[in-house]
């Protein structure tokens, strides 16, 4: 991956943090629940660039989000990284052109990310996460994640696109940037 996609991805992470701490935290909630923008971006990026880079991107994005949460630093990083890895592994079997790929991956990624966050958080001593309300939050958030995935996937695809003519991808899965 050349410097330009890296720069775009870095700016996207910053945008995620700003949007999550302003627009979504302040008002754009459905039944009091906001989407997990960082998680959806991780799912989208991992969908296009594969498991290793997906996991690494998820780790960095989660770490950036963690800096603004009171839960332990590394909790979102771990759950995002595992989701990024998982999406990267399964994406090979998904038809990329399917119009439902984005919302389905967004919803499944949201569900998996939410469950991992709560599960690992509880192991790390965050007992308050083990509540019935967490189930409700995870389910609503995953539906919300599926909806915003429609917008996030094209942005992620644009961000990782190499400059005209350059080849990018990961070993064995290269494609030509348009």
């Amino acid at each position, binding site marked *: 991956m050349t410097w330009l996609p890296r720069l775009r991805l870095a700016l996207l992470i*910053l945008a995620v*943090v*700003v949007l*999550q*701490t*302003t*627009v*979504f*935290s*302040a*008002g754009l909630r459905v039944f*009091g*629940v*906001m989407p*997990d923008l960082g998680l959806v971006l991780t799912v989208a990026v991992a969908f296009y660039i594969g*498991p*290793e880079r997906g*996991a*690494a991107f998820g*780790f960095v994005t*989660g*770490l*950036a*989000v963690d*800096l*603004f*949460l*009171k*839960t*332990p*630093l*590394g*909790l979102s*990083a*771990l759950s995002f*990284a*595992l989701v990024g*890895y998982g999406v990267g592994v399964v994406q090979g079997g998904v038809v990329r052109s399917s119009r439902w790929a984005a919302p389905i991956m967004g919803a499944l990624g949201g569900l998996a990310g939410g469950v991992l*966050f*709560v599960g*690992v*958080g509880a192991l*790390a*001593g965050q007992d*308050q*996460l083990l*509540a019935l*309300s*967490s189930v409700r*939050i995870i389910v609503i*958030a995953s539906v919300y994640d599926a909806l915003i995935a429609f917008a996030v996937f094209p942005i992620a695809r644009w961000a990782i696109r190499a400059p005209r003519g350059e080849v990018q991808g990961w*070993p*064995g899965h290269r494609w030509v940037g348009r």
Partner: protein
Amino acid sequence: MVVYQRGNRRRTILALIVLTAVTLITLDVRGAGPISAVRGGAHDFVNPIAAAFDTVFSPVGDWIDGVTSAASLKDENARLRRRLDAARGQRATARAATAENKELKKLLDLPFVEDANSIAAQLVEGAPSNFEFTVQIGKGESDGVGVDMPVVTGAGLVGCVLEVSRDRATVLLIKDPESGVGVKIEKSGSTGVVKGRGDSNTVRADFVDPKAEVTKGEIVYTSGQQNSPFPAAIPVGTVSKVTNTRGDLQQDILVKPLVDFSRLDYVKVLRPSSGR
């Protein structure tokens, strides 16, 4: 062979990431100092960008909010006017009681809410996660805000300061499950600890003596016990449900906070008076 090597590399990268994340979690749970500083730095870096973003987009959000809630706002306005009239009458009565209370507390040398220096602050952000109940206020270390300072509105207790960066502070709301506030119940005088219940509209009062006669509608105040960051007599909420099962070691009491967390705008951060 290539496939095997790729799979091996994947697993190594994943293992490294998991190990790093677990190390960070462990360090943070154990309270490693640099992590708090990094968090403060990150807030200081993002805050100006977020503030600029808010300035540009909040009028749009306010407009959408106004359009969608115009009808309910009209009803609410009428209801609030009625409540204001009632509150004016109660205020006169309360003044006399406050003066008396102040004199008595002076004698007892207890911390007093009105004596505390307060810092007015506006809410700038909500919690960036679905799993925590915090708000960001637009005053920080440079304004004298410090960790553990109580945060109130005219209605009552909001929470306490959890983290501070240069220009902002994170306030842990009393509805957060990690929040715990020592309280006293109005009539019975029994004490307990109010714990948050997440996105519920009530909080729970734990450790209340099962023999105490607690009734619905009683006011719950901060108890201001030793080592508590909260001064005494800040109203927290009203008792909304009492379940006292025979044989239990404590009563099951739900308290409805006096503060409407969905409509928070301005708050006051209480700085402890010099005597504390």
